[in-house]
């Protein structure tokens, strides 16, 4: 079975501010405590652009740049897969609100930020990367669907792929119809070739009607169950603990993705 090496991880959520500092929490060596996320993130965007863009874009780009930081491959050679259930719901709320007003004054800026691939566009511009890029959604299974597509892309092109998954709480009134409990962003730098820089080796196989893994810690489990990108937490825990074994993640609808990990 083909393998995929994890070479870098990016992570940002309340109480999980970066992969380096979060490993001890995920490994169970330190308790998980909810803390606000740092304000300055996504420093690869120029300051004026960082001010103009949305928190969704900044969260996605922050974890993307962190996952690339250690191995630091030429960003122009790395393909990308962005996975998100809700995209930028702040922008969609503003557009839907504008559409209820006289003459329906939809802002051109909001409209071009409304596409699901906005973070991918900003990433490619910031890194001058012309490689293939996908932006996808599989509702609560978005992370595993993205992982499966990232693997397929890495194997087909024999090239590194950066997987970025992110979701944020929706604004009122949408929040009453879709619960996302906290922001969560995660990125994995994946290499179809195993190198000495790998953190973990993955083998993927699709499955149906198996139950997905849960977490023992109540705070982390609330995050996992309350944000589609945080469905990655059982895999992140396995990487942090240098486990060997199987992790089962929910993929789109009825499907699951079985991930065999090996340090």
């Amino acid at each position: 079975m083909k393998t995929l090496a994890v070479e870098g991880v990016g992570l940002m959520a309340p109480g999980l501010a970066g992969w380096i500092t979060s490993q001890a929490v995920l490994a169970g060596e330190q308790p998980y405590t909810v803390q606000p996320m740092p304000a300055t993130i996504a420093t690869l965007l120029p300051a004026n652009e960082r001010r103009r863009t949305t928190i969704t874009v900044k969260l996605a780009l922050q974890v993307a740049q962190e996952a690339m930081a250690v191995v630091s491959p030429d960003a122009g050679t790395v393909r990308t897969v962005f996975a998100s259930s809700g995209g930028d719901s702040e922008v969609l709320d503003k557009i839907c609100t504008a559409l209820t007003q006289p003459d329906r004054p939809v802002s051109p800026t909001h409209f071009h930020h409304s596409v699901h691939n906005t973070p991918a566009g900003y990433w490619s511009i910031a890194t001058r990367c012309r490689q293939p890029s996908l932006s996808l959604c599989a509702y609560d299974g978005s992370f595993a669907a993205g992982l499966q597509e990232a693997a397929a892309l890495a194997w087909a092109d024999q090239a590194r792929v950066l997987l970025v998954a992110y979701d944020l709480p929706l604004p009122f009134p949408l929040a009453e119809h879709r619960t996302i409990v906290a922001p969560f962003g995660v990125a994995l730098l994946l290499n179809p070739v195993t190198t000495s820089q790998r953190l973990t080796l993955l083998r993927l196989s699709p499955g149906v009607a198996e139950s997905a893994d849960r977490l023992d810690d109540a705070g982390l489990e609330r995050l996992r169950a309350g944000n589609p990108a945080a469905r990655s937490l059982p895999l992140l825990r396995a990487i942090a603990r240098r486990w060997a074994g199987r992790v089962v993640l929910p993929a789109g609808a009825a499907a699951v993705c079985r991930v065999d990990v090996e340090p």
Partner: protein
Amino acid sequence: MAIEPLAITACTVTNALGRGSAASLAALRRGEGGLRPCDFEDADLPTWIGRVAELEAEPLPAEFALFDCRNNRLAWLALEQDGLGAAVQKARARYGADRIGVFIGTSTSGIGATERAYRQRDPITGGLPATFDYQHTHNVFSVADFTRRWLGLTGAAFVISTACSSSAKVFASAWRQMRAGFCDAAVVGGVDSLCLTTLYGFNALGLASSQPCRPWDARRDGLNVGEAAGFALLEWAEPDDDRALLLGYGESSDAYHMTAAHPEGVGAALAMQQALARADAKPEQVDYINLHGTATPLNDAAEDRAVLRVFGPGTPCSSTKGWTGHTLGAAGITEAVFVCLCLEHGLIPGTLNTRQRDPKLGAGIVLDPQERPLRLALSNSFGFGGTNCSLLFGRRGG
């Protein structure tokens, strides 16, 4: 070396030209377009649109009521045409329900349902109506979830949402997922329906034309938003396959600007070159290019540069947006199926509404339809965020 081709076992399109592939093929041959002055809901905009008739009057069957919205109605209509459902059932018996992937493209999904809910907010609490169902209508995954349930499939499923390249890229994803062994066959498709977000959004950007769109015309002044759905069942090709084949795909990013295409068409050219390389084909072997051709002044100019760089001025090209409008996230599948119909029936469509070729553009634009055998044909789809995809289809023999 060329990649292993995928066969298009079944395919279908529904759009402003009518339901099913025959309606589109007849309209392409006769030069009869489907655009009309904007009459969607109460939109008061001086533009033309490509609307599918009578969607408003056809709710989903009761057991799918949760999914009921314009986008899923359009998906349902298309799934019922051209024997697609029967072909998928045959494939299901052959491979198993969990071994057929579902990869669908959309840009705005069922956001129309949310637009409507925002018009019905509670005057005191500001809340949306209790009947509003975000997961099964607005969420981007909704149309893939509906499609896989309608077809009885349980395997890998996701939606690609990369604006106007969405449902071209599903072909590349299907190839990769099948190659990786995650599935043995795939249903790919694209569905995008009219909504106020895109109509007023393109109007705000100044990109919507007040007339039927005129790709490559010297006086072109913008696009017309359209709606469409299309699907295809993909399986690995047999050695002597006489079905239409996906021979190559190319994907790239412009890395230039969020809404403006790279003026030299650098990313677009890369996508076309990669589609050719994966098929091990030379530019001069391509008989026809179905252009993205939205009819905005800058997009057509950028694509023209890219086509000239890869193919020169000799390859026959046309844009079919003058028939359907720009169907956004469904443009990729719509024009992929058009290309397959053209290969099967030996047709190069013209470029509807275009009268005077822009003298500043050099690609080999065909204005009137030509009947002649085709072996290889390319389809281009490009979108906001600088996302590009080109697909190369062909037939053996002929």
